[in-house]
């Protein structure tokens, strides 16, 4: 028995030595490549807009074999994304080069609202901005509202009983709601729900009076004629919704143009080689017909941004959000 055990130990040792040997052996002098499956963190929960996009990216990467190692998606939505920010911040050693994250605007708002996290987003590695999602103001078709004037009139009449459904507190939807309230002198009541799909359903089921959903969340109901967009938070009209004017067109200066970023960000301290690798992978994803189709169908916009340009974009957006959050008294 003892000899058997000993020989087993020797075999295990042998395997270990061989494995270490192949490690120390010189690698190809070529470009950096991931050595293990890539940790593909999603800063939002399952089923949301960010999650769907991340899984689409993963599928595209696998389909076109854009990476030698698989990207393994994992949702870390805890604390409005605080959990995933900490996860990236704490990535150490080889993980620094194998952790990337799909992010959205909570990338700015969460560190601002929770300064205790000690997260400085300017230290994160820019990989690529894949798109900017748009926002529209939606109402139920049975409300009979077709334009912003009617909306303002109806909302004023109902005062505080006008229900605006949105996702989360202190985030995009609430920012836009406060801008609408301020610009038109309204007093809408904001009710937070979990996830954009759920918000869309609340409107379709007439449990809410209006929402500020992304097109991808309302598209199903819009196509069925249940809900209707009455204005867009974009600089110009959207192809998909030609009847919805922009707030800029309506001359409403108090309401800013507002987008949701859909970006990929790497862990702080990622090596130059790894950074280049991921930038290449995601710029290829951006160019595939699948991604372009998706952008068109869901009315996404924005060019691919990376490197210094992306960092600058983040800096600008962060300042804008800081001001917005201050205005509504969230920080």
């Amino acid at each position: 028995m003892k000899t058997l055990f000993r020989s087993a130990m020797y075999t295990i040792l042998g395997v270990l030595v061989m494995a270490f040997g192949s490690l120390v052996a010189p690698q190809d002098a070529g470009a950096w490549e991931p050595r293990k499956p890539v940790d593909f963190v999603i800063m939002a929960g399952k089923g949301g807009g960010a999650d769907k996009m991340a899984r689409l990216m993963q599928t595209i990467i696998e389909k076109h074999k854009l990476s030698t190692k698989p990207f393994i998606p994992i949702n870390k939505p805890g604390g409005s994304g605080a959990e995933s920010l900490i996860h990236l911040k704490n990535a150490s050693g080889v993980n620094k080069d194998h952790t990337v994250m799909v992010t959205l605007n909570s990338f700015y708002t969460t560190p601002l609202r929770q300064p205790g996290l000690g997260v400085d987003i300017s230290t994160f590695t820019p990989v690529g901005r894949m798109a900017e999602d748009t926002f529209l103001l939606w109402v139920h078709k049975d409300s009979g509202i077709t334009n912003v004037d009617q909306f303002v009139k109806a909302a004023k009449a109902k005062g505080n009983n006008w229900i605006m459904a949105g996702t989360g507190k202190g985030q995009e939807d609430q920012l836009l709601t406060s801008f609408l309230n301020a610009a038109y002198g309204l007093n809408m009541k904001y009710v937070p729900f979990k996830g954009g799909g759920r918000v869309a359903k609340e409107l379709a089921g007439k449990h809410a009076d209006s929402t500020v959903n992304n097109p991808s969340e309302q598209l199903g109901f819009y196509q069925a004629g249940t809900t209707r967009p009455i204005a867009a938070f974009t600089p110009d009209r959207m192809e998909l919704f030609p009847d919805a004017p922009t707030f800029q067109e309506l001359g409403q200066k108090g309401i800013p143009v507002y987008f949701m970023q859909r970006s990929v960000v790497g862990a702080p301290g990622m090596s130059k080689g790894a950074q280049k690798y991921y930038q290449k992978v995601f710029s290829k994803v951006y160019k595939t017909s699948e991604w372009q189709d998706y952008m068109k169908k869901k009315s996404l916009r924005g060019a691919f941004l990376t490197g210094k340009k992306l960092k600058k974009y983040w800096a600008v957006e962060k300042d804008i959000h800081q001001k917005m959050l201050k205005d509504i008294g969230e920080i």
Partner: protein
Amino acid sequence: MEILSLLGNGFLVAFQPLNLALVILGCALGLFIGAMPGLGSVNGVAILLPMTFIVPPTGAIIFLAAIYYGAMYGGAISSIMLGIPGASTAVATTFDGRPLALQGLADRALITAAAASFIGGTISIVLFTGFAPPLAAVALAFGSAEEFALMILAFATFVGLGGDDIPKTLFSIFIGLVLSAVGLDIISGQPRLIFGDIPGFYHGINFLVLAIGIYGIGEILWTIESSGGDVNVSQATLTFRRLIEGFRGMKETIKGTLMGSFLGYFVGILPAAGATPGSLMAYGVAKTMSKDPDSFGKGNIEGVAAPEAANNAASTGSMLPMLTLGIPGSPTTAILLGGMVIWGLEPGPLLFVEHAEFVWGLIASLYIANLFSVLLNISFIPLFIWVLKLPFTILAPIIFILCVIGGYAPTQDLHDVWLMFIFGVVGYLMRKLDYPMAPAVLAIVLGPLAEPAMRQSLIISNGSPMIFFERPIAGSIMVVAIVLLLLPLFKVIKGALSKPASGSQA
């Protein structure tokens, strides 16, 4: 008629050789994923996504349906054999499935679970085939007030579940509800109960962590103690005769199975609820309806049949809001929704019109997957029985390892594994003192659904609780719930009046 021809087309697609092979592969894979504690249909469906470009989309859908069904059947296996619910949908199955297995009746429980699942699945697919669009309207009518009322009803069907010690039962419910509040308060957007600022608490305490801890680790510690270390615990055998007897025995449970199927399906179609409250309520109702309610929890076969029928029916049901409203009722359907995006399909009321071949292909493959799952499941039962007969000193460490991996897999965070370990040890110590554990597990499942629904409703009503009674649907559910809640209280009072001396005997 039109429905039948559409369904016929769906079947033609599903019976192609490649697709049939995918069904069998999917069912088998799903069965094993589901049987693994911690892994459920979510993981099964997640691996499907990269598959979608290897095989054509129809093949992918069929594969998906097969995995989904396989995993739903598989969930019952770990509930019965190990006493660990693999997914929240299988919690109710452990209540009676585990005692049956300990009595050496694992084969009976497994056969009943398979047969009940099959009946539940079939009934729900037929309902799905016939009445999808009108039921979608019902789902849409459910707002937060209705949702909260439904959660109260789910609790109410369960009042009798705990032990005889009322303070300990209540304690168990309360601690489950408090633990369910850990993480983020979505109404105020503030993190809460982040103990010691540990980042792992930001994602809250997943139901699985508590369930695997208590039912996996706690249960094994318990068995180690009661068996003195190393005897074979389960004396299950399976012969052909016992198999036939098992099927014959289905007659006794048919009432519970049918009730579970319909109840499960209707609860399943409600957007937020999904299969978990469905199976829990089916268990509660089966107990209430039974002539012998006291035998529930001690190994009543109806306690296996009703929730198993209900959770299969509800999983089919929860596809309905996903397809027609684009709302995932469960994590599984959330991933499915992602898959539909990749296939370029827009969920919504128009899906049934514009992509009829997708919808009917899916429905047809559900029928087929259901049939194959039950066949595979029954043919694997001898294998499972064999596993149960392994010496406990082999089974115990393997179950421990499965618990550790199962606790890690959903969040990929070792923090959850530690929590699970703590719950297991503390749960074991408390169980020795007659603290009932099932109410805590139920509470942590229902808490995160109930609390936001209550607060959203109150915000909408300007803080007036009357919203739960004024709305017709919410109001009627609420009244039923309150009657159910008061029923045992009434019994207690009546009991106390009839023999006033019982309390002071000690």
